[in-house]
């Protein structure tokens, strides 16, 4: 008879917020009943959106939502890293910049001056950067927002003492498993699926939309060929660039693909 394994000590978990829309925390909260089950096995010591607040607590796992866009955030992410055993980024902003990183391609100060009555009250950095540009990140969860299933899978793996399973295949495989009809082939939609990592369950293509690439680059992407496919569907080079420089623009493969879109398609 196998002895029952000794009960593991309860993991302490924190969920931190940086520059973001809170959607990833909501995806976490939307786990509903499973979140209650999770609370049985871990101590949620800091999760402002759900209740507990203790931002400086030392924890086993720190989930970080949002990107770095202010001087205060640069300093705060360092503190969190020092207080955490594992740091996991939660979603597109934390992992690859998010939509606010579009200001990296523009004159952010000019935007500030044109939008706010008193721009001098706003302290923000010239560029928006993913968490990994500032501190070591142990695991990345992609998506805008993240998938609750992946969040749970990461925690369950860590509870079992194993590395979470990387999901880095192209979205196309999930799309085909779900018996969705390819929107690129059947409708000429400029889909990012062939370069985007799986995880969302092919949500957009299943509803007839082209993938936006919110899960960031898959492993072994051929962005040059993909850019040419998009151009072949009628997209101008600038439109191809904009597909890459979107929600996950700071992921190196997409940043480079957008930068070279003009050359790639001509």
């Amino acid at each position, binding site marked *: *008879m*196998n*002895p*029952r*394994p000794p009960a593991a000590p309860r993991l302490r978990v924190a969920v931190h917020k940086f520059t973001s829309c809170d959607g990833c925390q909501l995806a976490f909260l939307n786990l509903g009943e*499973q979140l209650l*089950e*999770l609370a*049985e*096995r871990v101590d949620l010591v800091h999760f402002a959106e759900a209740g507990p607040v203790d931002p400086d607590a030392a924890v086993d796992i720190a989930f970080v939502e949002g990107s770095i866009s202010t001087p205060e955030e640069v300093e705060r992410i360092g503190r969190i890293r020092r207080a955490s055993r594992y740091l996991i980024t939660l979603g597109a902003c934390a992992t690859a910049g998010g939509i606010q990183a579009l200001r990296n391609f523009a004159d952010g100060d000019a935007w500030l001056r044109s939008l706010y009555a008193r721009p001098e009250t706003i302290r923000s950095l010239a560029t928006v950067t993913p968490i990994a540009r500032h501190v070591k990140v142990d695991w990345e969860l992609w998506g805008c927002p993240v998938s609750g299933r992946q969040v*749970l*899978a990461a*925690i*369950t*793996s860590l*509870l*079992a003492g194993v590395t979470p*399973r990387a999901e*880095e*295949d*192209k979205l*196309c*495989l999930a799309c*085909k*498993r*779900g*018996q*969705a*009809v*390819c*929107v*690129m*082939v*059947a*409708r*000429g939609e400029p*889909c990012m*699926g*062939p*370069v985007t990592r799986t995880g969302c369950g092919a949500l957009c293509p299943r509803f*007839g939309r082209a993938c936006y690439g919110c899960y960031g680059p898959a*492993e*072994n*992407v*051929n962005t*040059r*060929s*993909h850019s040419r*496919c998009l151009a*072949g569907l009628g997209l101008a080079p600038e439109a191809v660039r904009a597909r890459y420089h979107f929600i996950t623009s700071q992921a190196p493969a997409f940043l480079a693909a957008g930068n070279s879109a003009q050359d790639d398609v001509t």
Partner: protein
Amino acid sequence: MNDDTTQGKRGEDKGAAEDGAAVFLERDALQTLLALLQSGGYRLVGPQVRDGAIVYETLGGAEQLPRGWHDEQAPGRYRLHYDPASPRLFAWANGPQALKPLVFAPRELLWEAHRDETGNLRFQDCLPSGERIAVIGVRACDLAALALQDAHFLEGPFPDAAYHRRRTGLFLVAVDCSHPAETCFCAATGDGPRVEAGKGAAWDLRLQELEAGFLVEAGSRAGAAYLARLPARAATEAERAAALAQAQAAVARQTRRLPAPGPSAGAPCHDAAGLAGALTARHDHPHWHDVAQRCLACGNCTAVCPTCFCAGDEEVPDLAGTASRHYRQWDSCFTAAHSYIHGIVIRAETRHRYRQWLTHKLDTWHAQYGRSGCVGCGRCITWCPAGIDLTAEAEALVP
């Protein structure tokens, strides 16, 4: 399979009818067959228009069949067109999928493990229900592919229980292809466009669609039992001649073929050695690099290919840490995980992955299953977002 073949030995009594035994059925009487199958306990699965393509899904009745629809296929492109004047239900070539998802599920639970009160692990098989499904409008290429999937899943030393369950529940109503797409080359591989007895997986009923209705014949005892209950009459000489002419025209429409080097040149490639040995001999050919410039390594080709059978496994433990579910799902030789072993990805680059796909499909498949793994359905050509055409790539490698 069907009520009469009991033990899941696939189709020992199927596909046995003599050519020429066909009777004529008015087009509207097809609904009678569908209703009979439904009352015989079958769920109907048949072609329908959904999201701009013809897909096989649960069918309520004949009115859902794609009457008047035609497809237009090219590398990386698929479009449907509607012709209100056409009475035909099957005037199109295959869409992205047909039989494969019904027998080799895209994702399925294989087993569960539970830790009981005493700490022991208990394992439990999770087999599919063994539902009976009648598939309407199965093409010759898909019957050929089904025979290959059978060879892989059932005829080895370890038959696959889940596949066997699903496979045993199938009743196949085949239809001859009258309108091959520009991407089809089943005539060249010897797998179509006609449905023939003794070729590919066995079928229960076979239809040939004409302007006014169908020639129908039975290929199994179960098929014959249904056929006997249909309001059919003897086919006329003119109807037989029309069916033959249509079949010849369907062959003539096909332009693509795979290269067949050496002594087998010109022969249908699965009758002969085809490309066996030819691609392994070109392992270091510079063309693999060329195709990798275009290939997205997206795996769409393998997902739509009706013979591809690679799967990956995933373990999904529950939150409480007391149970775990073990899933199998479609994988592809274009993923990193497919060649991950002991700390390294063996086929890290796209040229290695494309080479694996083409070499296995067209070359080493011969040694494994006695023929090429390609049945000429053209799906991998149409559904490749980059429009890569395996016949052209094979030609470039083996001119």
